[in-house]
């Protein structure tokens, strides 16, 4: 057996790969070899560690020292100083971007990680995602074994119901209830689908889970299959996520080799297998019926509901569609019980939520925190505040289809229900933070352009509506709009929210409606030919001073 005194984990998530983690890893291996340390130091790639803006990131165990923003040229120093002589290279250590930053930060002790509660991301950045053994070492597949050897399918559904887990894709529908609909149907063929078509702008949590802990998805899907009586699963991954597709395919092969997929799993008569399907660039395919159309090889246009997929999904058969993050919660719930899960988060929204922080925030990246944490705790606590001493203008929660909240809402608890009341949504967990140097109308125009591009064209309210919203908002940014245009926008938004076929068209007006409500003054200024932040180009004749 090989014995290593140190393990060096190189973050191999996509953002780090962009930062050149391959070159860092290669140099690391070279240097380790050069100094004859290859038999005592193990270099391995792991999934995303979270602080993406700091990539490439590595962690040196057993100390757990985290180095950030590495260049291949820095590696020699780390190998010679830290790995050989045990001296931490302070210059390169991960620093939290806060005023009173600590100098040496270990993976576990930083504030960035300290406020977090990692259930979904339990293995991300800790294990080698390409090793099924490392997943198993962390209790992997034990939950599946427990289900198949000790529990009836109905009992599995009951535990998930009792846990209060709600779908993490955006809508927040109770997962156990969804499973129970499909479990009740009488069909010789049922399907489990993992929705990994992560397209909501500002969201990249699913990619990290897929890249960092692929087996947790496979295990969650197999448990779902047993619970509802399905023997076939599909993972639908967007075509842009090349690394996720590779990692999942690799993980599925490993699971088949160990008999964790296939027939007679754990000696039971349960059989389950999974196939990866990839999308080809269509945001609407994140909608579950559009996704099903796409898996069937068709244009990804949403279906009329009802019937819902739980009763009639892929090829008309009962189908459970669950988000990646939802499935990653399943195994821990089975192992630790519903009561344990309810110990996190709020009563109506138990558990944790993975948020991706983007925009004007010091710690861009991804975090997992208990449901019900306030926006302020995220932005100024885990997020490290806003760079450049600028003020907080607004946060858009739930991605581009979510609403925009001004600073009055900083103390709002983040969960499905309270955010919906505020006119926004928790959605996918995307958090776009904007400082006060940006123009609200300009950013709304950017949101509207997105929906105009992504509308699939099947229903009229969305196809026409998204285009008209974009045109009208553009008119405002050009200083050519009037009060009538605002009235038209409000009316059109209402029509779309109530009559569009699927969530895309219904949610498209959300950012506009909330901004019209909370930033009325700034819209008003534009009607008067004045952009307070100076971002929009206004007709010169209309410019009013100050």
């Amino acid at each position, binding site marked *: *057996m090989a*014995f290593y*005194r140190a393990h060096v984990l190189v973050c191999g998530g996509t953002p780090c790969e962009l930062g050149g983690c391959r070159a860092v890893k290669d140099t690391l291996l070279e240097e380790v070899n050069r100094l004859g340390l290859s038999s*005592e130091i193990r270099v391995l790639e792991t999934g995303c560690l979270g602080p993406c803006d700091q990539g490439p990131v590595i962690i040196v165990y*057993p100390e757990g020292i985290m180095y950030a923003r590495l260049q291949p040229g820095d590696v020699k120093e780390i190998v010679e100083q830290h790995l050989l002589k045990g001296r931490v290279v302070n210059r390169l250590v991960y620093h939290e971007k806060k005023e009173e930053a600590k100098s040496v930060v270990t993976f576990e002790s930083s504030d960035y990680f300290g406020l977090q509660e990692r259930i979904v991301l339990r293995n991300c950045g800790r294990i080698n995602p390409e090793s099924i053994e490392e997943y198993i070492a962390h209790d992997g597949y*034990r939950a599946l074994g427990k289900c198949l050897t000790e529990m009836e399918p109905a009992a599995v559904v009951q535990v998930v119901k009792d846990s209060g887990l709600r779908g993490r894709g955006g809508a927040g529908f109770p997962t156990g209830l969804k499973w129970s609909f499909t479990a009740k149907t009488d069909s010789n063929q049922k399907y489990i689908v993992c929705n990994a078509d992560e397209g909501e702008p500002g969201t990249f949590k699913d990619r990290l889970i897929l890249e960092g802990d692929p087996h947790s998805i496979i295990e969650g899907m197999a448990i779902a299959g047993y619970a509802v009586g399905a023997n076939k699963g599909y993972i639908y991954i967007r075509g842009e996520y090349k690394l996720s597709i590779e990692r999942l395919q690799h993980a599925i092969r490993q699971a088949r080799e*160990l008999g964790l997929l296939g027939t007679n799993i*754990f000696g039971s008569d349960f059989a389950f297998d999974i196939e990866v399907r990839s999308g080809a660039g269509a945001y609407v395919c994140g909608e579950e019926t559009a996704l099903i159309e796409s898996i069937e090889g068709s244009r990804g246009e949403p279906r009329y509901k009802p019937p819902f997929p739980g009763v009639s999904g892929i090829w008309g058969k009962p189908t459970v569609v669950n988000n990646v993050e939802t499935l990653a919660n399943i195994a821990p719930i089975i192992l630790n019980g519903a009561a344990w899960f309810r110990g996190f988060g709020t009563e109506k929204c138990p558990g944790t939520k993975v948020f991706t922080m983007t925009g004007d925030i010091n710690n861009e990246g991804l975090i997992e925190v208990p449901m019900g944490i306030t926006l302020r705790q995220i932005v100024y606590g885990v997020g490290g505040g806003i760079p450049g001493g600028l003020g907080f203008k607004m946060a858009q929660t739930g991605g581009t289809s979510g609403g925009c909240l001004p600073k009055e809402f900083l103390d709002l608890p983040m969960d499905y229900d309270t955010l919906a009341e505020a006119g926004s949504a928790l959605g996918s967990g995307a958090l776009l933070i904007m400082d006060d140097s940006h123009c609200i109308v300009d950013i709304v125009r950017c949101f509207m352009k997105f929906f105009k591009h992504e509308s699939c064209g099947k229903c009229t309210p969305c196809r026409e509506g998204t285009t008209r919203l974009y045109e009208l908002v553009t008119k405002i940014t050009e200083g050519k709009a009037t009060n009538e245009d605002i009235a038209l926008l409000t009316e059109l938004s209402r029509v779309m929210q109530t009559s569009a076929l699927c969530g895309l068209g219904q949610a498209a007006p959300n950012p506009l409606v909330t901004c019209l409500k909370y930033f009325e003054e700034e819209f008003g200024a534009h009607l008067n030919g004045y952009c307070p932040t100076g971002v929009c180009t206004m007709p010169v004749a209309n410019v009013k001073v100050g």
Partner: protein
Amino acid sequence: MKSLEELARIREQAKQNLQLRESRDGIKIVVGMGTCGIAAGARETMNAILDELIKRNLSQVIVTQTGCVGLCEQEPIIDVTLPDQPKVTYGKVSPDKARQIIANHVVNGNIIGEWVIRSDKQ
């Protein structure tokens, strides 16, 4: 995969390989690897320690290194910490001494008093 027992076997095996990253309270050996330590032969001592641990299949032991502690004339220096026991520091640890320390102290819990240069009070 035929049974929970089979899974448990794979898990135990895999856990061994992960001890290093997981364990926070196991046996720790720290080798002084400052310039002075290396000059005094700490690399050879380290190699002997690793070799001995592999031979004895002691995968739960964590080996790290540290810089110079200022007792340069005592190098190579190693610290040995057993769970719930104070840290013991040995000086002038040759490869051969290192092997004996593992046999007596790490495996059997007998501190080799004559080589100790410092022992923390509990």
